[in-house]
């Protein structure tokens, strides 16, 4: 185990970690809701295509929808039940999206039959990739990028370093922390598949220093066959340490080229929960049905880390855990990058790592007063990509979106929120950038 106490990326911010409430709570199973709302697209790429009909009874783990091409993944039934409807349902973005309404059988044992597993020893790389796609696995860290696509190394590129992302820099969330403590066998199994697939020379498990128990546990449980290549790397606590680019720079010293992918510097980064699912599902040929999320925040009464079915509506979750009377905002994820939800009828999807709820005490009735930019450069010192958020903000205010993209690298911003976090003028910089990026993309498309 190496302590990378000095090695980290430049800039970054230090939001309060706020993980004490749930870091020590073991994963508990969350009750099955009376109705599951399962969007057909929980990933980047084309939505899955349903293979079941309305009124059909399905068994837990059964294929509900198959991938539509390579940039798509399968969708499996999170519970045994009956397909009530295949139609439109609310989503986090506010748009209505196609999905499957599934009503679990209350009395069912909810056992999952095994399928055709992908044998570690005998499977080829392509078979492993097909297996990951068939299992419906996407980036569980939040990006929801189809994992099998990420793991298909393009011609002419080599993967030198496999990085398992257990950093979890987002405040309040402790999902990955508990997965590392309680599913270490699954993680190592997943690493075996990934190492075989990527042929990487070295594997780092990146963990922030605020999870010493997880780091120690993984170090202790490291199997003999992985000792040579796998290393547990403890990194300083800094936001956004868990961002792909920042993690690669901290561990390898390389910078991912602007507009490029990590594989261009020989790195592949996979979230630790995704790795655990690969290790758990591939040997038995099952599809992903559930995931661990942290339900937390000052407005939540029964905080904890819960194993919860994909498709569980937010309303059911908050009702079960109980909320304070002055609950004001609910985020899908944590407070730094998680969007505030406009409807509680949206479900937990594959990319949901947590649900955080704030009360009126955290942020008041109205947003803080916005002042003009005073060019204090706190944001310049915070941006991990070395952009100038102050200048970008001024340009955005004047509608100069094209200039932002062409001369100031707007498209390199991954909306981590460090700039808005430190801004003394309380300018919603990230929101300006989102609007600008959308305008630039629209202009490029037309």
């Amino acid at each position: 185990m190496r302590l990378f106490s000095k090695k980290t990326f430049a800039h970054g911010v230090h939001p309060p970690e706020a993980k004490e409430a749930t870091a020590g709570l073991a994963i508990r199973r969350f009750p099955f809701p009376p109705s599951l709302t399962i969007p057909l697209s929980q990933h980047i790429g084309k939505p899955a295509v349903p293979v079941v009909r309305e009124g059909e009874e399905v068994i837990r783990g059964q294929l509900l929808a198959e991938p539509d091409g390579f940039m798509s993944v399968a969708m499996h039934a999170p519970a045994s039940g009956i397909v009530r409807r295949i139609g439109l349902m609310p989503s986090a973005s506010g748009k209505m999206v196609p999905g499957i309404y599934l009503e679990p059988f209350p009395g069912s044992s909810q056992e999952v039959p095994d399928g055709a597993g992908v044998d570690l020893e005998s499977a080829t790389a392509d078979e492993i990739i097909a297996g990951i796609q068939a299992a419906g696995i996407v980036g569980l860290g939040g990006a929801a990028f189809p994992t099998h696509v990420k793991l298909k190394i393009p011609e002419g590129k080599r993967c030198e370093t496999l990085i398992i992302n257990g950093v979890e820099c987002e405040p309040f969330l402790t999902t990955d922390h508990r997965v590392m403590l309680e599913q270490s066998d699954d993680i190592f199994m997943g690493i075996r598949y990934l190492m075989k697939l990527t042929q990487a020379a070295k594997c780092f498990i990146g963990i922030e220093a605020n999870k010493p128990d997880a780091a120690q546990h993984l170090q202790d449980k490291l199997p003999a066959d992985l000792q040579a290549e796998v290393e547990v790397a403890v990194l300083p606590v800094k936001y956004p340490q868990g961002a792909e680019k920042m993690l690669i720079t901290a561990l390898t010293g390389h910078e991912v080229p602007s507009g490029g992918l990590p594989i261009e510097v020989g790195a592949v980064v996979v979230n630790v929960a995704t790795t655990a699912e690969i290790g758990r599902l591939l040997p038995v040929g099952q599809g992903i049905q559930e995931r661990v999320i942290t339900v937390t925040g000052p407005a939540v009464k029964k905080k904890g880390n819960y194993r919860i079915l994909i498709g569980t509506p937010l309303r059911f979750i908050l009702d079960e855990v109980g909320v304070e009377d002055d609950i004001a905002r609910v985020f899908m994820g944590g407070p730094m990058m998680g969007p505030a939800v406009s409807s509680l009828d949206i479900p937990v999807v594959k990319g949901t790592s947590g649900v955080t709820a704030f009360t009126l005490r955290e942020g008041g009735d109205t947003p803080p007063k916005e002042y003009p930019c005073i060019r204090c450069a706190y944001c310049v010192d915070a941006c991990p990509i070395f952009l100038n958020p102050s200048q970008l903000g001024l340009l955005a205010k004047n509608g100069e979106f094209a200039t932002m993209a062409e001369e100031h690298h707007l498209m390199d911003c991954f909306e981590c929120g460090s700039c808005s976090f430190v801004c003394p003028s309380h300018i919603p910089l990230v929101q300006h950038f989102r609007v600008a990026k959308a305008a630039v993309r629209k202009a490029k498309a037309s």
Partner: protein
Amino acid sequence: MSNLAWIFVSAVLVNNFTLSYFLGLCPFFGVSSRLETAFRLGLANIFVMVITSVCAWSLETLVLPHAPYLRLISFIVVIASTVQFVEMVIKKLSPALFKALGIYLPLITTNCGILGLALFQTSRGYGFFEGLVFAVGAGMGMTLALVLMAGLREEAELSDVPKVARGIALNLIIAGMLAMAFQGFAGLFGSAA
């Protein structure tokens, strides 16, 4: 401080043509909205000034002793022809700049700063090299003023300027503040205005 060095520093900083003598304000406000055009126009200015200086000195030394009453008009004719020459050169070397400057090129390079250069040079009795140094210094001083002004104007463009002040009003005031700042160079190296 040597005479030539003093002439140079005086022309650039102490007695800046734009910010101390307030000459050549038309082009100053005309092209200082974009840094690129401002800088390139400044260079064109230097070029015109150098040629003018040489011509003025030649005229003063060789021709005008015989007809001193022709001073003003001969300078004007020389400057106008030089401008045409510069226009042709720019058109050939950088069509983009030529297009960007548009009508300003002839308007600008016939600014009173050029005439001022010629007149100052003769009234102060500068020799050939002194005149050259003076021209380069004056041109660089004007370029400096243009560049600084352009930087300030580009920033002001992103600012929330009240409607009543937008446009030439704000620019005049910015120029005034810049001129005040340059007042700090007054008396530098023992020079008097």
